[in-house]
């Protein structure tokens, strides 16, 4: 079932991270399942335990099903200084989840992340591939509404 992805990469361990990215990005729940790990292990001829170790090391990968939209709020010092804690509180309130959790409707997963390199616009978050900067509570409300309102 992952042939389409495997086709693009030679069966070498160095392609593991690429393959995992792609499997995750194409999964509707944006995660890497145990089954996927077995397939990758088979294709790359490496041990499943190695893949599990790699998978849990990098923060961009998830071994648990996630929401349709992944919110990654930066909590590094520059964003912290500009109020990321307040933003987290607001997001948690809006979505009724804690960091690391997925909303019950499966629409959002709220994650905290390290510096996204957009510190000039702190506080910053990413939703999926999109970056949102200079966040304020009002701005957050609007952004979230644009996802729940079916605009995005």
């Amino acid at each position: 079932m992952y042939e389409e992805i495997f086709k693009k990469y030679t069966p070498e361990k160095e392609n593991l991270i690429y393959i995992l990215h792609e499997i995750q990005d194409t999964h509707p729940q944006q995660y890497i399942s145990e089954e996927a790990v077995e397939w990758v292990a088979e294709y790359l001829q490496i041990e499943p335990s190695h893949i599990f170790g790699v998978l849990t090391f990098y923060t961009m990968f998830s071994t648990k099903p996630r929401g349709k939209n992944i919110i990654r709020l930066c909590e590094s010092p520059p964003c912290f200084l500009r109020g990321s804690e307040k933003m987290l509180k607001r997001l948690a309130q809006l979505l009724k989840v804690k960091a690391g959790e997925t909303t019950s409707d499966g629409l959002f997963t709220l994650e905290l992340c390290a510096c996204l390199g957009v510190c000039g616009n702190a506080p910053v978050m990413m939703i999926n591939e999109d970056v949102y900067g200079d966040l304020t509570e009002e701005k957050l409300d609007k952004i979230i509404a644009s996802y729940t309102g079916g605009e995005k």
Partner: protein
Amino acid sequence: MSKMINLTVDGIEVQVPEGTAIISAAKKAGKNIPTLCYHPDLPATANCGVCVVEIEKSPLKRACCTPVWEGMNVTTNSHKLRELRKTLVELTLSNHDVVCPTCVQNGKCELQDLAYHLGIQASDLPSLLEKKPIDYSSPSIVRDPNKCINCGRCITVCAQTQTVFALTLDGRGFETMVTTSFDRGMANSPCVNCGQCTVYCPVGALREQTHIDSVWDALLDPDKYVIVQEAPAVRATLGEEFGMNPEEVTVGKMYAALRSMGFDRVFDTNFTADLTIMEEGMELINRVVTGGKLPVITSCSPGWIKFMETYFPCVAENVSTCKSPQQMFGTMIKTYFAEKEGIDPSKIVSVSIMPCTAKKFEAQRPEMRDSGFQDVDYVLTTRELIRMIEEAGLDFKNLPDEKADNLMGEYTGAATIFGATGGVMEAAVRTAYFVLAGKEMADLNLTPFRGMAGIKEANLVVPLKDGGELPLHVAVAHGLGNARKLMERVVAGEVFHFIEIMACPGGCVGGGGQPFGSSIADRARRGQSLYKEDAAAVKRTSHSNSEVMKAYADFLGEPNSHKAHQLLHTNYFERSKVTGDCVKAVTHKH
């Protein structure tokens, strides 16, 4: 010859080959640098940081992974280093479940030792420990993340020495945890139960699934008839644990201790080691003579068997169908012995004492019930036996030498050397030679199979009764990493006739149930003790074991008879590399 490097360690001049790590160079200068993760048998993981030393004109460096350089001036102890080590040990303790009095490693624990040596006082650092569930899923091994100090030795030994790849790291940073894939538990991983991780664990985070309470319950239950067997490697180890000359083989005191603890019959696994040779030797001869599947590969080591089922099911038909000596013994107790003595086998509790954790897994395999009951009920490791002897308050060192009970207690030197790498090969060749040539070998010592080389090979020429000759290419591997290498050669088509595999480095004397911290040097010494006992034995070939012959005459018929096949042989499965579960049977019982 590699280049030699001169350095000083605490003012002592030493010369070591280029590339030597400071920690080894210091040892040469008589200085043991403290560490929590480094073990001389294993490549340095360089995780704990405790071994940092001062070097002139350099920042502090880890002694375990820093190679020496010419003119290096090392200081291994100073005010600064002591304070540093204290802080590191304090930090480690703050994230460790400190339950020393009841820990299996109490008295042997490397963390306990170091904390004691450094005089760590009650720390004013807060505890970091967040209790995690203990993994009791495996029949062999318990994994306790609350004690783990992330030294990395278990993963090194599992992945590099044994190439089993059951253990891995989950997560990152402080949350990093040694676990199995997707934290499914040891039972649902490719773990082969070899237990090498338990031997190298410095703190008791990996240990055996204990049967001590169950065995005491049986011993203290008057309705139970409790029978014990002991593997050859155990007797080569007990002495060192009870302050005796470590080279001494303590078989007589072992029997005395077991009897004193209340076992109703004290037999010896060596008996079925000889029986195994009769069965396996005959299987080998049959296959060689009739053009059967070659090479024949030994089946005594349950860690190897599960490894084979997981990674090399393609050689399953090569593996001898013989059960291991433990399991042959279990079946024979609840059939042959029960019949002979007129004891209801349902009342029998069959206990084995093994240097091995995989035997606990083997005993509960569903196939291992040919007596109509679970053939072996409980398996104790050497370590558990030692604790039981201590609990019983026995002065082991001064116990009288006793003998094993009759019927299944006799053994030969060939059985004794089962405990060391190459021993099964040597024992099998002695008997196969006798059967094929019609006479004993002139020299029973087959030294090419002895010693700690990872893979040992020989070309033998056996003279046949009818005047011909039979050339045999045979090989011995111990440690599953070596087994893997050898199997890759077999799969590639290289011709072998007979191969002995033991899962653990050094063979059973280096088993996963042997004392914590057993080093390669300890294993080599125990092996030599067994060879010494063999040399001193009156009978040194399995076919000269009269009780074994009697068992054939009275009960089994002849080697490889139908009944022998029913009771003493088994079949194999293919297993998932992910979960270790059986996928399908790959061989079938006759």
